[in-house]
């Protein structure tokens, strides 16, 4: 029943957008767009984020105190998927918040419509890590996204389980153990399995994610050529994952109920760990006492995740919104967000701050997480090229790995299914 209602409303959204454009046009012309120069005008700015960006009430209040004419309304979607639906249903038609957060997974899709987004002021350019800023700059050289966080990855592990398997359990020992390429990482997993009979890694698809995030051109090339099924690097990644990671993984993919539960019950002992994963582990295994994080990542460094703030160009207060986005993503504010939610900053200055260098995490055996993640961020050398179809291809490849993991199809059949799926796109 709901599906029918849904279908109707989906079409209705499309249908009424024409009138929405007219309304938005009226709204836009009805008053002068508030800018910094007109400090007396009362302005309400809406900020829409998802999950937890670390934009606390106090942080926003600070800005409102500095700018008494501005009121900030902050809404948070539960997950980025909800935000994504809303974003593309309203983009270019009015109705979006003055500042909208976009997750890196669908940022490339948003960049297709970069002309509908307001350009960031020149003064903020150069604030971010090169690749973070480059991904938010469109073909015409317009910077349309304010980088918030990034996801440099280390390896989280359970010290006691490692010790029980005869592996080193101290942070430096584990870092030495995993120092090397993916083969080495999976060799250790084999050792762990030989000693305990249990898988070492949480999920086969997180390994795939880790490997794929180190490949520059994965499924498509900038000229639009689809290389997904012919790319030898992707094929090698698939083979490595299905042959060696699948037997060593507790689950096919992440985020299932079982997977969440498994962080506390010792089904696996290690996982690839972007900064934001620390909070997820702590939240799901609050009573487990031996989680730790090592300053190492197979094959160098890898980035997983990170978001941007965008300002839709048809908003009522574009200038004021740009100023707020500028402020929110400035290094000082980003450090406060990191302290509040663990969103690892993407700003060069924040990365160099002593505050970050000294940050530790009590749950992870007082690990110097600031220092570790900074080193991991520096180790990131490849910014994968992700176009608007990236998500679709990657999703299908993950499904291929899952089929092998579930024993539904063998390695070759599952690859062939993937090839057929890609051809159907």
């Amino acid at each position, binding site marked *: 029943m709901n599906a029918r209602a849904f279908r109707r409303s989906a079409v209705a959204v499309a249908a009424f*957008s024409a009138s929405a454009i007219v309304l938005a046009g009226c709204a836009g012309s009805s008053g002068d767009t508030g800018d910094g120069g007109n400090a007396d005008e009362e302005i309400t700015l809406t900020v829409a984020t998802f999950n937890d960006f670390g934009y606390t009430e106090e942080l926003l209040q600070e800005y409102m105190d500095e700018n008494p004419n501005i009121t900030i309304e902050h809404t948070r979607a539960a997950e980025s998927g909800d935000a994504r639906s809303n974003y593309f249903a309203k983009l270019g038609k009015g109705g979006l918040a003055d500042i909208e957060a976009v997750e890196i997974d669908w940022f490339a899709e948003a960049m297709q419509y970069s002309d509908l987004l307001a350009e960031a002021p020149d003064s903020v350019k150069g604030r971010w890590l090169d690749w973070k800023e480059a991904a938010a700059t469109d073909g015409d050289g317009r910077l349309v996204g304010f980088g918030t966080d990034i996801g440099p990855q280390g390896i989280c592990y359970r010290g006691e389980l490692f010790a029980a398997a005869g592996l080193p359990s101290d942070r430096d020992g584990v870092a030495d153990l995993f120092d090397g390429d993916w083969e080495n990482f999976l060799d250790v997993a084999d050792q762990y399995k030989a000693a305990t009979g249990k898988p070492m890694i949480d999920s086969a698809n997180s390994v795939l994610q880790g490997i794929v995030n180190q490949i520059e051109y994965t499924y498509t090339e900038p000229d639009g050529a689809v290389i997904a099924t012919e790319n030898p690097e992707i094929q090698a990644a698939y083979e490595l994952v299905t042959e060696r990671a699948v037997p060593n993984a507790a689950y096919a993919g992440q985020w299932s109920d079982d997977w969440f539960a498994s962080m506390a019950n010792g089904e696996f002992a290690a996982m690839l760990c972007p900064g934001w994963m620390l909070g997820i582990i702590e939240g799901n295994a609050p009573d487990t006492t031996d989680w730790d994080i090592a300053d190492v990542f197979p094959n160098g460094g890898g980035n997983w995740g990170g978001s941007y703030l965008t300002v839709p160009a048809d908003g009522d207060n574009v200038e004021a919104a740009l100023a707020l986005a500028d402020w929110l993503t400035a290094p000082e504010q980003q450090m406060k967000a990191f302290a509040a939610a663990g969103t690892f900053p993407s700003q060069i200055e924040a990365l160099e701050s002593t505050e970050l260098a000294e940050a530790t995490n009590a749950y992870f055996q007082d690990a110097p997480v600031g220092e570790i993640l900074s080193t991991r961020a520096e180790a990131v050398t490849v910014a994968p090229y992700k176009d608007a179809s990236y998500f679709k291809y990657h999703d299908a490849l993950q499904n291929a790995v899952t089929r092998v993991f579930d024993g539904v199809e063998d390695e070759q059949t599952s690859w062939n299914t993937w090839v057929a799926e890609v051809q159907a796109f």
Partner: protein
Amino acid sequence: MTATQVRPDAPEAPPKLTQKRVRVLSFSQQASRWDLKVSPYLYISPFFIMFAIVGLFPIAYTAVISFMQWDLVRNSGEFIGFDQYIWILQNPQFWTALRNTFSIFLLSSVPQIALAIFIAAMLDKNIRAKTFWRTSVLLPYVMAPVAVALIFSNMFGDNHGLVNNILTDLGLPAIPWHKDPFWSHVAIATMVNFRWTGYNALILLAAMQAVPRDYYEAATVDGAGAFRQFWSITLPSLRPTLIFVIITSTIGGLQIFDEPSQFDNTGQGGAAGQWLTVTLFLYNIGWREWNFGRAAALAWILFLLILVIGLINLMITRRLVRDESSRGAAGVLRRMNRKEDAR
């Protein structure tokens, strides 16, 4: 407009020149005449206007979009003909989705209606605390589908699910709920049945209550047992209601979305499309890939499919239930049914 009037109480009467009153109507008279003719349409128009806006227009618009390469954000498209219909019909995922939809539909609708009739028959008996039982039957229906899915996904977890825990404790093999298509369909059908059985039971109960008690008394006097009474009186009397219930559950079953989308955390119907249904496929195309042209084409295919199956369904159901009624022993009822048909 005409300035003459035939007497409103005899509009069909042949005009008799002698009786014809020729006079000019005043404005208020004319208005009241319009009132008589136009008002009823005005009173019922809100529904039709609303339907045209939120029902008819979107449906027509979907048809237009289905022939276009549509860009949702820029709200523009390029006409490409039947390409998207062909793409869907050639896509193996569509056929998998169709198979799953029918499988889940059969696994849910058949036991559901059988169980609903049984429950309704029980509730129709003279039991204690009638209202309590009747209300409890509807309880699952009131629950939000997402909440139902949450509870059941906990039950049907592969590793830590309740059902598998019990099975493995008993020394039985765990069921691959999220791997094997059949078992995933069973799990999803269970959710659907949990939610809709009580609802259908109450509708059928209402129909059963309308059966005159005299029939049962007469049947009892004739020496018919409980089962015979049910088979020959209750079931035939339920015919129109059964048709309604079967048709609605067919439409609902072919559009099943909530339960399969909540069955795992990604909501995409499984890595091998084990529980990908047609609407789930539609959602994936529309809201994950933003390809509204293809989604619209699929929506129309689904619409036609439901129409065809609904008609087949209607014919079969009518025939089956009619056969039973004519086979029945309750002559009174048979006569009544005939009369109804004649009307």
